[in-house]
């Protein structure tokens, strides 16, 4: 996997980034805004994929990492009046700390117990947001004030509420996350992660400390998700408890399953596709959860490798 064609892999990924850049100039307003949102959420899915796809750890609680970034950044501005870069850093830091703690605890369990434990910790996180409603805004949420959402570099002032700036910021975050994922997956570390997914006992007997490898993967995954949450707060200006609810733990799983677990571009494709499906069907029905439910069942039944996973298996073996 990691031996074949590095040029091809990097070429493809840079091509995707260039395509997204070009789309900014041709898309109509509505789709322009939607794609910016999808790119930010695709980063969430990429973080989830890092753990689920490559290490094989199925978490049902990643909403707490997204939420850590979202509230870390949002509250830093709303309550503390920090600047945009400092708030983003605060969101990341919250993600690092939370994922390290959760990793240390949850990794003592495996399989089904890991799924339930992560779900319960996420539930605690969600309830804490409701409990400290005076500070967090509870289930009403809070708006990040528009004047605070500007980036200042000397004389240049970038207004994050401007559609083009917002789109390009989302694209920048997406590109960084994508290239980091690609580099990790192709590295020796990535090979160890896949080995743990395939057979943890054997990996241990090759001299690898599987616990610390898994722990670092949880932290990387949680931090990428937190970056997505922090960017969401800064770019779209809303911080609400629904983003930490169990539904937002299920959605990245759905996106990754749809696009293809353990593929670098699968999360983007899954997120895009799901939004597209909801967008078309919203004309006929408001039963959005029904679509999510049916999609989950059909995917695990007939398409467990997802879109890109199937393409890789049938045609393009070199796809990272």
């Amino acid at each position, binding site marked *: 996997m990691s031996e074949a064609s590095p040029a091809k892999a990097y070429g493809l990924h840079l091509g995707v980034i260039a395509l997204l850049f070009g789309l900014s100039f041709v898309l109509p307003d509505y789709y322009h805004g939607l794609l910016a949102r999808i790119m930010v959420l695709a980063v969430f899915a990429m973080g989830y994929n890092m753990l689920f796809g490559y290490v094989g750890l199925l978490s049902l609680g990643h909403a707490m990492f997204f939420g850590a970034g979202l509230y870390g950044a949002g509250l830093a501005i709303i309550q503390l009046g920090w600047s945009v870069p400092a708030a983003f850093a605060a969101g990341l830091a919250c993600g690092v700390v939370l994922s390290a703690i959760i990793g240390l605890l949850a990794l003592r369990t495996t399989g089904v117990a890991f799924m339930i434990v992560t779900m319960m910790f996420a539930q605690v996180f969600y309830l804490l947001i409701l409990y400290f409603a005076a500070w967090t805004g509870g289930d009403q949420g809070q708006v990040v004030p528009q004047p605070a959402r500007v980036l200042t570099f000397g004389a240049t002032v970038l207004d994050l509420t401007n559609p083009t700036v917002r789109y390009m910021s989302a694209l920048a975050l997406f590109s960084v996350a994508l290239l980091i994922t690609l580099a990790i997956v192709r590295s020796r570390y990535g090979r160890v992660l896949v080995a743990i997914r395939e057979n943890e006992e054997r990996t241990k007997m090759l001299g690898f400390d599987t616990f610390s490898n898994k722990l670092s993967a949880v932290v990387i995954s949680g931090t990428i998700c937190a970056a997505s949450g922090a960017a969401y707060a800064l770019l779209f200006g809303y911080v609400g408890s629904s983003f930490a609810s169990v539904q937002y733990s299920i959605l990245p799983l759905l996106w990754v399953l749809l696009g293809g677990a353990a593929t670098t571009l699968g999360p983007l494709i899954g997120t895009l596709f799901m939004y597209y499906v909801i967008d078309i069907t919203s004309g006929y029905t408001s039963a959005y959860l029904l679509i999510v439910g049916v999609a989950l*069942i059909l995917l695990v039944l007939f398409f467990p490798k997802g879109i890109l996973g199937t393409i890789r298996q049938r045609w393009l073996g070199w796809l990272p």
Partner: protein
Amino acid sequence: MHFGPHLLLATLEGLVTSAVLALTALGLSLVFGVMRVVNVAHGEFFMLGAVLAWAISTAVSGHPALGFLAALVIAPLIVGAIALVAERLVLRRLNYNPEATIVATIGMLYIIQQLALTFYGPEARPVEPPFSYRILLPWFGYSGYKLSIIAASALLLTATWLVLTRTRIGLIMRATQYDAETAQAFGIPVGRVYGGVFALGAMLAAIAAVLIVPISQAHYLMGQDPLLLSFIVVIIGGLGSLRGTVVAAVLIGLSDGIISMFFSPTLAKIIATLVVAMVLVFRPQGLFGTASR
């Protein structure tokens, strides 16, 4: 009211909660024990039982007891049939892979919930109790119906226990739980056992819901709390252990009311969830269970 009677009242209320919880959690525990499937849609089977109970009891005219009894018989059968179909169409095709089945049952949760919203609506609706006899204690009157819930639950739990330990069906279920492959080799129809157990688990949740609906109300989101509480009970009691499930249900049912009395409900939930997560992390066999094989 003095402390003694107050405590008695709280205990009675707690026992009613425990009775319903024990039945619901037992369904979840059986499905996990025998099939190794974590059924996230379990709470939705509970909700379906309550919603169907409302539909059936409003369709039957005459004395409320008639409608209630019809619901008590018919609602679990419908829910069991739905569960059986879901098991045949989805879980069996996944070969009961633990992780795939969790994702699939999450899918079922969303589908059932959305369909209930579409066809039943967002309202909460009551069901009339079959009888309204009040037992007069020296300090307060207490609903005879609530006491009958406790009795009914105890009866059903005993019956389940007898079936599991004393009958051929129980033996077949335990054999399948212990080692499905060997059971298959000895001619036990493992596929049918799985189908039956999944339907039975859903039916237990539905019965619990029919029993509780006269004193609470039917609502399309009512499955969430029973699911969480059943998880807690099954984890504390030890996955797949009947005795542990009942003990934990009584413990949780009684303490739920008391914790909520002293703390805000949200804080009570936070503490309970955190405690259970820690139990799973540090004592995965449960507080009462022994290490599984």
